[in-house]
């Protein structure tokens, strides 16, 4: 499963969009990353990298993020 682009992940993190069909881990991690970036916008690139690493390690997360 191809991974989403960093720009697509940035847009997702900075939006209020819900991932209603995604696995619980993906939804919770997205929620946490959004909070961290809201608290410190300078973390955005690091959090995108963290999210990509999570998707690389978990096929279900790559599936969840395939169509964002």
């Amino acid at each position, binding site marked *: 499963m191809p991974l989403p682009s960093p720009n697509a992940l940035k847009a997702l993190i900075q939006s209020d969009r*819900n*991932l*209603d069909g*995604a*696995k*619980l*881990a*993906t*939804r*919770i*991690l*997205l*929620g*946490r990353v*959004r*909070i961290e970036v*809201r*608290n410190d916008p300078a973390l955005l690139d690091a959090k995108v990298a963290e999210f990509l690493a*999570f998707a690389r*390690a*978990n096929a*279900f997360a790559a599936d969840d993020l395939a169509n964002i």
Partner: protein
Amino acid sequence: MKNELLSVEDAAARIVSGAVMTIAGDEALLAQLPKGQWIGGTSVYFVTETGGAVIRDRLYCTTLPEATKADIRVLEASDLPRIAEGYAPGGMSFILIPAFSTAHSVFAVDGPSYTGFFNQPLVGWISGVHLDDIGRVAPKVFDGTTGAAHDNAAVLMHLTLEAGLIPQVDIVNIFEQNDADAPCFRFTQSGFEAQTALIDGVETPLADYLQENGIDTRLPLIANYGGALINVSVQSVDAQSGKVAFYAPVMQNVDYRFAKPLADYAQAFAKQLGAGGDTQYSCNCILNYLYGDLEGKSTGGFTGPVTFGEIAYMLLNQTLVRLELQPA
């Protein structure tokens, strides 16, 4: 996966046969079990097929023939950041933590930031005691490999699963967040208590606000994590000190809104859960049991311990956690 209420003798026989199990029950019963591949936590409240009940003469046992290997670890609060080190490839992990312990509070606040934490399903609950025993008896967790009970450490069971099985964990939250025009609560610090909150952006004494506005504190505060609704329940409101205590930590700079009221608690569960719970692992919150007056009321086919907090990756309140092992 098989869920059963068993006598001590039957549970012991199952353990001796080599089964991998998670067990919930009264401390006096758990203490009688032989050593083996099991973990346990104290609870006397259960949801059974016929409804909620206090059970002290049997143990709620989940047997996991799908597990090909079980590694059991006991982690004190300072070692909790090492949770993911025990994850088996393609597997899943159970975690039980005693209520009111340092491990409980540390896990609740810091858990989701641990390295690799989300890389496989982590499911479990906070062990408790009969409500009449709070403050007199400490909740415990048991490491079946030694038979030892712990009141200030987490016990984990990392499972390797048969090939072709995928663990699916999800939550059932019968509550909905209030509408977007309802007051929004933010907190300036993460923690189990708060004296003030930013309510619609204005710093406000929280206890005063809850009392003056007649807020029903049986309803949880809800945050939206990317579409997952995460509850935090109010434990107490102390008008004198101005402190509001919570059963799970409120998190800094997260937007919370109170839940909409429910017409019928038990029916809300039955409606959302549907059928098929007999082959799933589940646990439900003591606050649902109490506020929903669930004793004797059926909530559908999902049975299991009633707990002092549920864990689906993070600590949850007023939520049912469910785990299913699905074919790939």
